[in-house]
């Protein structure tokens, strides 16, 4: 238990994996650069957030997941979406509120999901809310026998929300296969981490839930990936949820509107010298995993891709006004057919197999026997069992006014055999 700065990792990566990490970081950055251009052209609706300098985290952590696993991104996790398989056009269109975007313009930014294929849960703006949600995905997946891991991200600032606490505690109590990445980028909007969280290492948050945690250099994509892979494996193996604190820095303002002049120059300079992509390029070149031709190829690939994706996105129409109406409710099976993907025998969770011995009860337990006697209130705030007289000036119920049995509902005799639903018919 407790945070541990991982020094050496057991397994090494394949060349393809090393290059994938590079490609996705580059893609992450290029997608965001394209969006900055679109923003300057007033084509972005609402705010534009940046993960400049934090790409190693989104990419390295999400790359540790399997296809069947689930994520929920936050505003600075475009990289995770890309690794999960979201095409850049979707991200562009979301930010431009286009009709062909995943949410068809009803929501924007990274607020979209995909339940059926990519297994992405849409975030909402309220920080921390995704934590119990993803714990629920993990618990639900386990129930269905899916062996999935759920992952989401939170900022240093977001770790002070109540729902962060409730979600992690519940995940830990349930030993959910859940991995939380805490991106400590030293700032929450204009507030430095020290003014909002009285901790040196935010990984210490995990101690309050008996959770294991790691601290990792968030600007080192290989370290991030290896740590995440270990955490994901352990979570999948049933060791319970794990928290990873990734230390990094928010290089730009809170969003495009914010020049972030409250950030000390020296701090910015320190981190600018530690750009995760530059660092990784140096590493790859040193290890002979990347050379000029390969790099050029990637440059070109990205340029072509993004040009096409951007164009597609720009050509998408704005949603027609009337589309604002409707869609608030699922109207039944014509709208969604909800089906669970069972990967275990359903018999395991249905009676008689699911039935457990009631070792905790004693005769008569719960049949309305408070210390005030058999007909006393079951719980404070309860009414006594059915009575003959109106209990309360004029509040009495018609049904209650008829003579009725004075006892709490009695147990019926156990039916002969078979499932009880059948037996009742």
């Amino acid at each position: 238990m407790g945070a541990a700065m991982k020094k050496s990792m057991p397994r090494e990566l394949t060349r393809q994996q090393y290059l994938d990490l590079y490609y996705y970081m580059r893609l992450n950055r290029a997608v965001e650069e394209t969006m900055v251009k679109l923003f300057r052209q007033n084509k972005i609706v609402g705010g534009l957030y940046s993960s400049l300098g934090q790409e190693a985290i989104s990419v390295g952590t999400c790359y540790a997941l399997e296809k069947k696993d689930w994520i929920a991104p936050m505003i600075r996790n475009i990289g995770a979406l890309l690794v999960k398989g979201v095409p850049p056009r979707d991200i562009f269109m979301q930010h431009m509120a286009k009709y062909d975007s995943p949410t068809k313009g009803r929501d924007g930014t990274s607020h979209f999901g995909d339940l059926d294929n990519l297994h992405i849960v849409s975030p909402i703006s309220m920080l921390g809310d995704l934590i119990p949600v993803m714990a629920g995905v993990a618990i639900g997946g386990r129930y269905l026998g899916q062996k999935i891991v759920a992952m989401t991200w939170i900022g240093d600032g977001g770790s002070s929300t109540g729902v962060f606490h409730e979600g992690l505690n519940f995940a830990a109590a349930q030993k959910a296969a859940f991995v939380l990445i805490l991106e400590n980028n030293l700032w929450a909007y204009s507030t430095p981490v020290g003014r909002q969280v009285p901790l040196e290492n935010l990984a210490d948050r995990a101690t309050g839930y008996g959770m294991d945690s790691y601290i990792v250099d968030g600007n080192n994509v290989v370290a991030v990936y290896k740590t995440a892979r270990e955490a994901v494996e352990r979570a999948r193996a049933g060791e319970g949820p794990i928290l990873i604190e990734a230390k990094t820095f928010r290089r730009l303002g809170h969003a495009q509107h914010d020049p972030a002049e409250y950030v000390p120059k020296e701090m910015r300079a320190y981190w600018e010298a530690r750009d995760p992509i530059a660092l990784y390029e140096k590493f790859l070149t040193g290890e002979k995993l990347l050379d000029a031709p390969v790099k050029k190829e990637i440059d070109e690939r990205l340029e072509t891709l993004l040009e096409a994706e951007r164009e597609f996105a720009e050509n998408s129409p704005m949603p027609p006004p009337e589309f604002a109406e409707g869609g608030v409710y699922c109207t039944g099976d014509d709208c969604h057919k909800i089906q669970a993907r069972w990967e275990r025998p359903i018999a395991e969770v249905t009676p008689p197999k699911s039935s457990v011995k009631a070792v905790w009860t004693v005769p008569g337990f719960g049949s309305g026997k408070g210390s005030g006697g058999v007909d006393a209130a079951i719980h404070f705030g309860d009414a006594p069992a059915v009575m003959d007289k109106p209990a309360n000036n004029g509040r009495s119920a018609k049904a209650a006014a008829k003579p009725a049995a004075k006892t709490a509902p009695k147990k019926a005799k156990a039916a002969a055999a078979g499932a009880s639903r059948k037996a009742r018919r």
Partner: protein
Amino acid sequence: MAGGNGAATNGFASGGRQVTFLEAIRQAMFEEMERDPTVLLMGEDVGVYGGAFKTSEGLLERFGWERVIDTPISESAIIGAACGMSYVGLRPICEMQFIDFIVCAFNQITNFLAKGHYLWNAPAPIVIRGPSGGGVHGGPFHSANPEMYFVHTPGLKVIYPSTPYDAKGLLKAAVRDNNPVLFFEHKFLYRRIKGEVPAEDYTVPIGKSVVRREGRHLTILSYAAMMHASLEAADALAKEGIEAEVIDLRTLLPLDEESILSSVKKTNKCLVVHEDTKTGGIAGEIAALLCEKAFSDLDGPLVRVTALDTPVPYAPTLEEYFLPNAKKVFAAAKELARY
């Protein structure tokens, strides 16, 4: 109450007999969990204890730890986790130990749960239920009627039944609905009300009111515990020659506009009775509805009989004064009838 074998019915065999409101709820959950293994129950003390009011008694025994989950005291986590579960195709029922604690999950419910389908096409078949309402000396933090917070939140459905039959049928319908449904159980009714429930599987449609008593002089709209006060008042009114039509709204969102309008078209007068506080209560929404769509039908002012605009006081004398009741309904209806 035998455990550990499939033959047990855990006291749920209900074949067409009189059951309490509480038992009706218990049966609905039992039967839905029996019918559909994607249905789960989560909440504080719902497992071993069977829930603070015993609405889930015997469920753990039959369905096991994976389907009857005792949670930490974390209402936001309960609702959040239910959202996540629903995304993998499950249908969680969430119990609030008292409905008062639902406000501790207000953000999750109004932002995450209610908006998901509209924004990103994510259905969330979740039921949130719990004991609500006053009249049992629960005081300011155990007597809430929070329906209007949710009636004012697009994306939710809101149910507040008054009979065992409806409670069971509507809860089953809620579990099968693909939308988030808030299901309020008036605790005054839990063990005071008994009623027949059919032996066979049935549901009661969400969004439909029911005429509990026909009449022609005025329409009384109500629901939950106040339904019974309204019926009692109607009996008394009848003795004075005033025939009130009493409608049980049952579902508050969506409102059954059609039935409300057609009754008022007939009676031309309308009185709304709710246990919720007055200002911002559902009577206002109904007033607006009538003003918009039945303005020329109204022969008298819309009258509200509601709780006072205060917290729910603790002392019985105060609570009684605070709450509406049959006498107050009777008096207001009589005046309206004479208008």
